[in-house]
């Protein structure tokens, strides 16, 4: 380990940002996305940059290699790469200011990918869909080093092996679409490692992945770092991931770094009020909400109100033109589930597990292939709504409402907030125009939005505010059941608890029952009384939330829970990871 010896002897800072400023010049003025940021990256260490959406952490990382999308421009500061302190560097002092280089020059292209490599959030769009994995990784090598094709291929094989892609001999000739999300991200990492970079910038590399795969990718990055003494800048919004991987932390807010420090220091003694709040909201989640427990004391959970009796949903099946049947995809496979009155039921599972489909079947947005959906209405009559037509569903749809995942696409951009919230009332046709207006104002107040929102359009609101609009629309016709499909996933952590608390307050007031669909165990633990775990279309385990979270019975639940990162750096590495292999 000569590299180790070299860096340990002296200063180990390999990349240094000094007063970095990046601005976006728009019609409406100059927007300073990165405001006077100074950071240091040390060889062999991981610096986690944390911050909520829009805090400028991504732009900051892109500024280093000058790949900010126009109209963004680096307008000040320095980004010093101390090459002499790296394994590749020579003995004499060689410091390069990356920001002095022309963004299109050969000099900076030489550094990109060789000294500093990047991996991005979305592995599907960062890989070229028309080239084989091997060619893409090989190109990264051949761009920077004069090696033959054959040699590059051998090195590629080795890299694929290093990132633990199974059967690299076969994978090298496959296309990205043949890979799963986790495999694609591994291939991206292989590409980034192609030239043994000194610095790896990872921009939310695990955000698009399921927790079990996220845990594996984090393991991989850590093990590679141990081997190669690489400095990693890891950008994330997830404090759990931070606790898992960071050596140092930089907290960003509104384009500025508000706090930097050692991982233990920040987690245990956060100085800046924003960091404190951020950590508090993270810690608050992951525990049962006090508000909910208090509510349950006074109000008991009632009889089943919405029951899924063996629901099966198959997509894309049907007859072909010339006879023969197309076998569809079974998204939900005989799911049995019941929601009781006044209860919060959580449905958890990874992407593609069928949890959203189940929710939509329960609401009968989708036709149900098989099974019954039993809904007990206010008068206590139980009714199977699986076979109803759209016209007959009008009444159950007033009782069972939805809060959608994406606060951007779920509100019609062409209607004002008042129109959006009032729509179910207008369609129902029972109230006069003035009554509807009054009701909408009442609803706006209930969800904590100003009355001035009435005349505005959705684009004037932030994600959290939009989700409040979505909630107001859901409760407008006085429903009894609300299905919230990943209602908080698109929101920042600090806003997440706010929205969940709002839902709990509404539950207290209007005696609602909730089904919360989420991939995030922490959110479910905070909000839900009972939990159902889905895996590949099947409900593998149901039970009381705390019981399931503490003593999971099914092997899949165990693996899921063991993969969830805990927001405490002290427990790092202590948890035993369980991997779940489905019996075939």
């Amino acid at each position, binding site marked *: 380990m000569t590299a180790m010896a070299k860096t340990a002897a002296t200063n180990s800072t390999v990349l240094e940002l000094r007063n970095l400023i990046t601005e976006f010049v*728009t019609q409406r003025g100059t927007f300073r996305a990165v405001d006077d940021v100074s950071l240091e990256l040390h060889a062999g260490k991981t610096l986690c940059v944390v911050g909520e959406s829009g805090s400028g952490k991504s732009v900051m990382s892109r500024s280093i290699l000058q790949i900010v999308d126009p109209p963004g421009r680096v307008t000040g500061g320095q980004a010093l790469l101390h090459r002499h302190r790296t394994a590749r560097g020579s003995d004499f002092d060689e410091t390069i200011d990356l920001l002095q280089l022309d963004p299109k020059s050969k000099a900076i292209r030489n550094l990109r990918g060789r000294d500093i490599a990047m991996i991005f959030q979305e592995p599907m769009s960062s890989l070229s869909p028309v080239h084989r994995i091997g060619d893409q990784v090989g190109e990264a090598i051949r761009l920077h080093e004069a090696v033959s094709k054959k040699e590059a291929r051998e090195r590629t094989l080795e890299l694929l092996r290093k990132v633990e892609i199974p059967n690299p001999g076969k994978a090298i000739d496959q296309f990205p679409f043949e890979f799963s999300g986790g495999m694609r991200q591994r291939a991206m990492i292989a590409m980034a490692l192609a030239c043994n970079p000194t610095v790896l910038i990872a921009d939310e590399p695990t955000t698009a992945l399921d927790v079990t795969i996220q845990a594996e990718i984090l393991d991989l990055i850590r093990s590679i770092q141990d081997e190669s003494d690489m400095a990693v800048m890891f950008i994330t919004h997830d404090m759990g991931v931070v606790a898992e991987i960071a050596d140092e932390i930089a907290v960003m807010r509104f384009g500025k770094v508000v706090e930097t420090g050692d991982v233990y220091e920040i987690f245990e003694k956060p100085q800046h009020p924003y960091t404190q709040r951020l950590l508090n909201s993270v810690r608050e989640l992951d525990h049962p909400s006090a508000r909910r427990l208090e509510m349950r004391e006074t109000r008991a959970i009632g009889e089943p109100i919405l029951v899924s009796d063996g629901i099966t949903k198959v997509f894309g099946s049907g007859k072909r033109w010339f006879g023969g049947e197309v076998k569809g995809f079974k998204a939900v496979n005989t799911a049995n589930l019941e929601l009781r009155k006044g209860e919060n039921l959580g449905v958890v599972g990874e992407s593609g597990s069928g949890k959203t489909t189940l929710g939509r079947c329960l609401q009968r*947005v989708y036709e149900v292939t098989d099974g019954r959906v039993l809904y007990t209405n206010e008068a206590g009559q139980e009714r199977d709504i699986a076979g109803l037509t759209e016209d007959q569903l009008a009444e159950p749809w007033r009782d069972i409402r939805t809060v*959608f995942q*994406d606060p951007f*696409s779920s509100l019609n951009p062409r209607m004002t907030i008042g129109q959006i919230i009032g729509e179910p009332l207008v*369609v129902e046709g029972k109230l006069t125009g003035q009554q509807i207006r009054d009701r909408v104002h009442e609803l706006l107040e209930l969800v904590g939005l100003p009355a001035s929102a009435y005349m505005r359009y959705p*684009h004037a609101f932030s994600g959290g505010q939009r989700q409040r609009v979505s909630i107001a629309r859901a409760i407008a016709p006085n429903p009894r059941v609300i299905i919230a499909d990943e209602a908080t996933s698109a929101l920042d952590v600090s806003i997440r608890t706010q929205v969940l608390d709002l839902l709990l307050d509404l539950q207290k007031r209007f005696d609602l029952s909730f089904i919360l669909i989420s991939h995030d165990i922490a959110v479910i633990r905070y909000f839900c009384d009972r939990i159902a775990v889905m895996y590949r279309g099947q409900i593998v385990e149901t039970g009381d939330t705390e019981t399931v979270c503490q003593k999971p019975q099914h092997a899949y639940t165990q693996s899921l829970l063991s993969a969830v990162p805990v927001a405490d750096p002290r427990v790092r590495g202590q948890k035993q990871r369980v991997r779940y292999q489905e019996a075939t």
Partner: protein
Amino acid sequence: MPMNSKTETDPRALVQSPQDFASQWSLIWIAFRRHRLAMTGAIIVLMLYVVAAFSEFLAPFNPNATSAADVYHPPQMIRFIDRHDDGGWSVRPHVRSLTAERDKFTLKTTYIVNPDEKIYLQFFGKGDPYRLWGVIPMDRHFLTTADPSERFYMFGADRLGRDMLSRTIYGTRISMSIGLVGVTLSLALGLILGGVSGFYGGRVDMIIQRIVELVISLPTIPIWLGMSAALPQDWSPLTRYFAITVILSLVAWTELARVVRGRFLALRTEDFVTAARLDGCSRKRVIFRHMMPSMVSHIIASVTLAIPVMIIAETSLSFLGLGLTPPIISWGVLLKEAQNVRSIAQAPWLFIPGGAVFLAVLALNFLGDGLRDAADPYAQDTHQ
């Protein structure tokens, strides 16, 4: 009830704009106004339609009035400063008179400037009587000769001594309106078939899309030729005009049908459309209240881009002699005059209607491009 919705505002945030209250249309307008090329296009298109609307008033002469003495009269430049013989000057629009001289040997006519004679022009002067829009009898013209017996030729004259400026102005009306009428027809077809195709999907979609492909794969020019050749020769020019627009739109609806279908497919899966269904909206309300507003802007953009195609199609058909025929005046009919080599050599100004086609098509394309870019104002506002 505790509503801790108070969040700190981003100190970097730019000043809140009135766009918060802006509706879809005002956002489109804001985005469109930034598009300079499209704004220029919009102004030119507007001017062309003004010309089309008031062509009788704007044209100096009756477009069918011939003058045997002015065959292939070249264009004249309008001068505003009138120099008197005594050295003084005044502002008075006029043109220099040209006299025809015939070469004794070659019999070629050449026009020579007659320095002594000036033809004075007058704004809002009296000229050939006409009926505005076929109804209001008038005889004032925007610009005509002070002496009604004299003539001037800004764009020259054709082989019968007819004023090309007047003819081009009259041609604007037919050429620009055939685009509108044709597009209206194909829009109706495209909206219905595309909408049905996109909304219902499945087998209906299959069949309609195959029909669209069939129509697209037909070679258009021979089809136009064949269809217009099949029109009875004894039809009146006006009937022919309508028949031609129908023929043009029968081929042009496919593009619009695809745009509409695509928008429907894209919107059908949007969460807010599902939300509208769950709000209890009827199918009709979902389409017209929730989906249509998001499509209108895109449809307007594609309509704007379809008009120039129509104009070009009419021009080419008429140029080939199978579209409109005299006495109807359209740019294509006028260009038919410029079909032979003789006219190129002797009277290049017969191509001026081609310039009008060029201008109209270019302006409409710029306008359509700008509209298409502005149609989705939310797509551009990502960097706020």
